[in-house]
């Protein structure tokens, strides 16, 4: 009987152990399954995080643009300030030199009648001006430092930005330094007297009504299909000859903006010898040398001088 009881108890214990195992296994399985679900959920969220990253990048881009813009404004205002300071400095320097020469004149004139109190006053004034100049110089120095800092910031920002934002532009800039692609030969400039029927070349300024010019351009290096070329005709007084506002304009060179007398826009095939002709009306020409210069890409590619008597 006692054996039957013990067996029953043993069976119940075994059952309990088995149930415990089942429960532990179920709990473990649930835990594992939950972990897997969480991983899947993270994968689904991925596009959202990409958008967030893009937004952050956009905002950084905006911040970058705003900073550049701010730097630009700073640069402009600093330039204006430094200009006005230079103007003030010039005025002060002029005053300083005036006083100095007055004092030198007073000291040179050592006659008894001369009043040295005047000289003393002027020396005091000069001293004040020197102090003023010193102060002004410090301000100019600090403005200069500010300007250099702004320029450095801009150039460093530019250096950092180029490889990321516009690497392509950077490469093309390196490939295209400003040099002329064309050569100009057979340059001619003729003063012409024109009546109703015909035109005759002249060397006399008073008879000339206009200038006719021509030259041949050639290019073996570039695949350019459209080219632009400027002609500058300089008068004996150094000013540019302009026949009409419709023909003349400005262009950029290494030395700054220049005025052209005539501009050519033409289509071109590599290796072609292209003859270009122009005419400039010119009233009241004076005697002297007239220089014709041909520019391409801001560089002089040909020059010829015509003398009118």
């Amino acid at each position, binding site marked *: 009987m006692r054996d039957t009881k013990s067996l029953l108890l043993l069976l119940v214990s075994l059952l309990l152990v088995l149930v415990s195992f089942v429960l532990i296994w179920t709990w473990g399985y649930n835990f594992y399954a939950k972990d897997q679900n969480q991983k899947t959920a993270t994968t689904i969220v991925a596009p959202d995080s990409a958008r967030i990253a893009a937004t952050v990048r956009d905002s950084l881009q905006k911040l970058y643009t705003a900073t550049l813009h701010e730097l630009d*404004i700073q640069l*402009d*205002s600093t330039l204006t300030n430094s*200009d006005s300071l230079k103007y003030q400095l010039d005025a002060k320097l002029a005053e300083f030199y005036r006083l100095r020469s007055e004092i030198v004149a007073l000291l040179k004139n050592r006659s008894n009648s001369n009043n040295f109190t005047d000289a003393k006053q002027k020396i005091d004034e000069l001293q004040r001006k020197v102090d003023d100049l010193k102060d002004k110089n410090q301000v100019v120095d600090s403005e200069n430092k500010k300007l250099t800092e702004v320029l450095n910031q801009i150039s460093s920002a530019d250096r950092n930005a180029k490889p990321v934002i516009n690497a392509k532009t950077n490469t093309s800039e390196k490939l295209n330094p400003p040099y002329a692609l064309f050569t100009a030969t057979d340059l001619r400039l003729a003063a012409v007297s024109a009546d109703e029927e015909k035109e005759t070349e002249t060397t006399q300024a008073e008879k000339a009504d206009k200038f006719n010019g021509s030259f041949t351009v050639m290019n073996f290096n570039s695949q350019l299909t459209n080219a632009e070329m400027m002609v500058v005709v300089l008068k004996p007084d150094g*000013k540019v000859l302009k026949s*009409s*506002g419709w023909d003349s*304009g*400005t262009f950029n060179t290494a030395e700054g903006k220049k005025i052209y007398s005539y*501009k050519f826009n033409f289509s071109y095939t590599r290796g072609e010898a292209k003859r270009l002709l122009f005419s400039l009306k010119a009233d009241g020409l004076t005697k002297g040398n007239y220089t014709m210069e041909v520019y391409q890409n801001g560089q002089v590619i040909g020059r010829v001088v015509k003398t009118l008597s």
Partner: protein
Amino acid sequence: MFTKLTGRLFLVLAIISLNCFFLTAQNSVVQKFESSNIYAGIEVGSKGVKLSFVELDKKASEEGEFKILKDTSVNTDFISFTTATYQATLAALTNLYQFAIKQNRIPSANVFTAVSSGVSIQAEKEDKKNWIDQLINAFKTDNNEPDRKVTIIDVKEEARLSHLGIVPEARRYNTFLIDIGSGNTKGGYFPYDNTKDFKLFQLTWGTKSAANAAEKKLGTDNSIDNFNSQLSRVLAGAEENEIVYAVNASGAFPKSDNIAFSGGIAWAVATLVAPELNENAVIPVSYDDVLQFSEKLAKNPGLYSDYYIVKTMPENITDLDKLAKDVKQVNKVFDQRALLSGTGLLLKIMRQFDGVVERKKFYLVKNGAVGWISAYVNQHSVK
């Protein structure tokens, strides 16, 4: 004592020299204008009365070209249609007419008088057409010229005459001329290689109307940044609703190589963008030139003061005194906001012609104001 005496002597000498100069100058002007090929045109416009002296030589009249010798104007604001502005306009008209025939000795048959389309359009809107008739009759009576012809020009004829007056013969049939006024924009081109058929182009937007529309949207924030934002909105609307359509409808793109702009804003931008070419009546520009100008102007208007422009100009390139005077005049007529509005409108129109494949040449005309009256004189004197 000696200093005082010397001063007085110099003053007397200066006055005598000045008198001599004026007498010589006047004589030379009179001699020149007495010639049979000098004509005068007097125009009653919306803002005032303008007088132009035009020289036509034989060759020039055959080619339809002429030279404007001198022009002057008196601001009277006739289109306000008040008694005061009416009286001022009548007085200006009479005085300029007398100035032409008496002081400059131009025969009365060579003096042409006309009323601009702007005046007639505004008079029609306000039912004040009788004010124009009254002005013409009073002018005839005051000058004892009952048979004098005072023509009222319509908008298409005025645009056609402006084209003839401004654009040279060589560019006549490939140039689209656009006059940006204060309240509207008008212009056009000759599509068929003759000067009779003219394709008219019109917009209801002008420099002042664009600025006014932006001002109305400002609210409490009167800053220049807010003005610029509101202006961008106004102009975007104008572009979308009117400019794109008007340019397409004009059919000007394939027929025009050159796009020339006249009007006050063209004069102002030309003076400030290309100070080196201050002596030129016309200057070539690109879309980028005008865009850059607009951006700099919004950021730092000081860059376009007469002091700064003259200071940064290379020596011997142009008459710096005249340049300073002209820039000062531009800044007097247009403040920063008016300049931004006009430039914005200019850019919106330019953009329609700045294609990727084909780009047109842009020009800004400075002396557009005397264009149509000069062409009117030219046409009527040839007949």
